[in-house]
């Protein structure tokens, strides 16, 4: 299905758009060789190796380069991802392993001039590519742009990218939510401490990142996982819930409204946004909001403190609650 709801089952890989004169290009699809309606493909999961085509989206290329007839390939949903790889004026089309094999005689030359592109192609063949390719990319960057640039690439792009992919695999579709993506970007930190590469992220566990750790160790690095606990406290959430109520007519907010709007008053962390273990359809922070409203008898509740009353489907902030927010300059 295309993004416009049109059923797009089978298409032909008819051309590509280039970023530069070598490496991976953007494959462009159409109904037939002479098509004038174009599509790009989506993969599932995005950005990974050995993936399938999950869908096609309409696309208006600026600089479409059409493939010669003999290179046009028919494909469809659920079939292996097709790449276009440019090298020395030749266009290579196929799955990553097909292209990898077709380039066997020139791979050494590519490694000398475009090792990052070769590494990207190699990852499509095997998620754990030859250590030598990674090392030659690092050495090439060091020679050409200096040690600092090479380390920036290794830590901020390559290793960080591996961790992100690993976490995305672990979180599945949840990782595609805008607020989760944003929190992930903000909270994932990869830094170097001597020979150690320290990775900071709240939800790190060795099981989920096993592939990453194995690969990094194989590259002579010593990854160290620093688990950060930055869940928003229930107390902060209580105050934010009162703020939501205060923003509503008569100071009344339903539980649903609080769940939907609390993120306007508190900066939710990745841990807050993760799915609840007991209620998988809810995020952790939504479950905490539910608890704030339903745990009415607990000693520290907003009701026991006199800051809100229960309305049956939410809360109503009291004068004492408004006064409390004022004392917090909120």
């Amino acid at each position, binding site marked *: 299905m295309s993004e416009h709801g049109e059923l797009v089952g089978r298409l032909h890989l008819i051309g590509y758009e280039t970023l530069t*004169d070598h490496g991976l290009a953007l494959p462009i699809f159409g109904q037939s060789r002479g098509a004038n309606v174009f599509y790009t493909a989506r993969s599932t999961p995005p950005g990974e190796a050995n993936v399938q085509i999950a869908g096609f989206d309409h696309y208006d290329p600026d600089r479409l380069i059409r493939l010669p007839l003999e290179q046009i390939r028919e494909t469809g949903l659920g079939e292996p991802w097709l790449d276009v790889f440019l090298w020395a004026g030749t266009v290579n089309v196929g799955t990553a392993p097909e292209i990898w094999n077709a380039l066997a005689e020139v791979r050494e030359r590519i490694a000398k001039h475009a090792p990052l*592109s070769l590494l990207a192609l190699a990852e499509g063949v095997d998620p754990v590519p030859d250590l030598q390719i990674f090392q030659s990319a690092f050495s090439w960057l060091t020679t050409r742009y200096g040690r600092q640039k090479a380390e920036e690439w290794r830590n901020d792009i390559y290793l960080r990218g591996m961790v992100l992919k690993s976490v995305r695999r672990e979180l599945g579709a949840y990782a595609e939510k805008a607020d989760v993506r944003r929190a992930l*970007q903000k909270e994932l930190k990869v830094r170097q401490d001597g020979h150690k590469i320290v990775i900071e992220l709240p939800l790190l566990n060795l099981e989920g990142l096993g592939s990453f750790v194995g690969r990094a160790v194989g590259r002579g690095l010593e990854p160290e996982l620093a688990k950060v606990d930055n869940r928003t406290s229930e107390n902060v959430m209580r105050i934010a819930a009162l703020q939501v109520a205060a923003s509503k007519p008569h100071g009344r907010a339903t539980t649903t409204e609080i769940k939907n709007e609390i993120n306007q*008053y508190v900066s939710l962390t990745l841990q807050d946004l993760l799915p609840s273990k007991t209620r998988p359809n809810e995020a952790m922070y939504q479950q905490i909001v539910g608890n704030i409203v339903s745990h009415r008898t607990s000693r520290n509740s907003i009701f026991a403190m006199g800051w809100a009353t229960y309305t049956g489907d939410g809360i109503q902030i009291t004068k004492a609650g408004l006064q409390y927010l004022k004392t917090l300059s909120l």
Partner: protein
Amino acid sequence: MDRHSTATHSTQELQPPAATGDTVDPHVYLDDYELDPNLPAAQRHIAWAFGDNREYLRGDLILGLIGGLHAWQSVGQSWLTIAGLAATGSNRPDKRASAIEVAYSKHLPLKGHARLMIFPQQLIEDDRGKNSAFIEDLTKQGLLWQTYDWRPNETPDRFMDEVTETVRRSLENAGQL
């Protein structure tokens, strides 16, 4: 915008916050919310609407700002509503909705005006020498550059995330956030 780039569009006049949706029509002038064409005006606007640079980069408006406007201040109210599309928690977050756009009537040399260029890492490699010349040019002009990992089967949203994070880190390192 094509699938390769995350470049911003150009505009024809100073038209600060514009919600552009998916496309930009160069013939539509959004001159109903124009700031004075100088840096202090942009700084005042950021201070009023966002509080500081960090919140501006995040697109998060000061909470409750709309309540401080009179009913007749409809332009400000409309702007706050549109700019809110960029805020954390928006269902369709679009950072362009609260971006201050600056347009010049003449071409500007990169030297002295651009601080950081971010592009796909393929552009620092070479098959035929063209990219080397490009990087040498940047270096000669003293421009900083960073790359991101472009893949044909990755989503444009991800590239935008990466570019935004690179910009954030760069501004933080420069002490501007």
